[in-house]
């Protein structure tokens, strides 16, 4: 329990103290929201698909959580480089708890970022379908955050330098985001793209966000929960296995 607390609070403090990181992580989703939201809004409307900003907000929240989570998980690379990783690797607690503490910390930070984006989207006129769904939405945000923080840790456990981080962003995070349906509806897609979106774990996160925030789930919240929950457990297991095997 102690280890969980220490690693969790550490992530939070680092986050709170790094204002540039908070602002940086919010700039991108806001840009997406404003540029794409207003840019494609008219066409989306004409195609009979409704208000694009409303459609986009859950996607952009998912994007924020994805980016922040993977980044938090990958902080292992930084900690390895600057040495703090060693301090936790020799600590007299099971590495599973160290990994879990880091994951909880990273996921808390990512969920907070997601909530801030939700809040900011109200400035551009967004409103939730039913605010009683907020707790469930937050629960989903946290599950998505756990899933991708654990994935980040799993991958970063095998990497020893910063170059690897760029690979994660280009070959993992970007495809996960663009193929998730965060920016476009999942209905009426070409067959091959439908298959790809069904493989992308983030699709189920985006869909869960749309279900809870807009009451417009395409896949069903039950399936969303099943897939994201199962994958979260799988990534936690894989991440803690790989983390436990780290040598310095």
């Amino acid at each position, binding site marked *: 329990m*102690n*280890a969980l*607390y*220490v690693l969790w*609070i*550490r992530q939070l*403090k*680092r986050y709170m*103290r*790094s204002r540039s990181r908070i602002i940086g992580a919010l700039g991108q989703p806001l840009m997406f929201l404003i540029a794409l939201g207003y840019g494609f809004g008219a066409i989306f409307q004409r195609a009979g698909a409704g208000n694009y900003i409303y459609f986009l907000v859950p996607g952009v929240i998912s994007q924020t959580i994805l980016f922040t989570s993977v980044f938090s998980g990958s902080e292992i690379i930084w900690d390895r480089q*600057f*040495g*703090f*990783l*060693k*301090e*936790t*690797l*020799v*600590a*007299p*607690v*099971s590495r599973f708890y160290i990994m879990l503490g880091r994951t909880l910390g990273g996921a808390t930070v990512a969920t907070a970022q997601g909530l801030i984006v939700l809040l900011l989207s109200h400035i551009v006129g967004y409103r939730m379908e039913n605010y009683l769904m907020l707790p469930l939405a937050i629960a989903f945000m946290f599950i998505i955050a756990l899933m991708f923080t654990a994935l980040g840790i799993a991958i970063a456990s095998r990497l020893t330098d910063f170059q690897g981080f760029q690979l994660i962003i280009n070959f993992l995070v970007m495809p996960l985001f663009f193929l998730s349906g965060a920016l476009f509806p999942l209905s009426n897609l070409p067959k091959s793209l439908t298959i790809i979106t069904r493989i992308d774990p983030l699709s189920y996160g985006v869909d869960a966000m749309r279900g809870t925030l807009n009451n417009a789930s395409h896949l069903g919240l039950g399936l969303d929960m099943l897939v994201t929950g199962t994958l979260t457990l799988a990534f936690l297991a894989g991440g803690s296995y790989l983390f436990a095997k780290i*040598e*310095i």
Partner: protein
Amino acid sequence: MNSQENAIEVKNLVKKFNEITAVNDISFTVSRGEIFAFLGPNGAGKSTTIKMLTTLLAPTSGCVLVNGFNPVTEQTKVRKSFGIVFQDPSLDDELTAYENMNYHGILYSVPRQLRQERIQGLLQMFELWDRRNHLVKTYSGGMKRRLEIARGLLHHPSILFLDEPTVGLDPQTRNLIWEYIKEMSKEENVTVFFTTHYMDEAARVAERVAIIDNGRIMAQGSSDQLKEQTKTESLEDAFLAITGTAIREEEASPYSRMRLIARRRG
């Protein structure tokens, strides 16, 4: 508490990285409560050995027992047995000095009251108390090193590993640190395993010394025994007699090279 006599037992330990043999069949033991110096030129295999003793690296072959436990199969038990001050930085720069100390104490289950007392005592001793709430990234190199050592002394483990703890510190601070460690070792029967390049330090503090070179242990014994064996006056001369005077790594500083040349001429 483990009742057996030896705190550390190493038998035929080998570590290979691909084709390079960093540690080549070494054996030694360190008794409980003993202060043991592990000396050797740069790249001799000291840090690699410490990493294997402290569960950070798996040996290629050989047998290791730390506090009676195997670092490969009983990692958590081994980790509960020791504390360590690493050769390179391992602080969290984005946290304050107090937070670094406090979180370490929590990780090592030091009770709150005792934790606060010791943190205050150690930070005052190392003259960091006034800046305890500053982020570590604002600290100078010497301050970071002092904090690193203070943190390593916070929980009193049964075995303490110190990998070149005093590098870059002034003589006053070094004396302070060794006095504290000697007292702690004596009062709480803490085994101390350390490396250093300051031979005077090793001669003064260590009860027993092992000299490692090119991954092999070249000599073991008390400082006096080594001087006797090599017919030299000081541990430094004994060290040079055993390991030779060639510089091992491109990393050797111009200063140590100058010193070496002066010695050859003199």
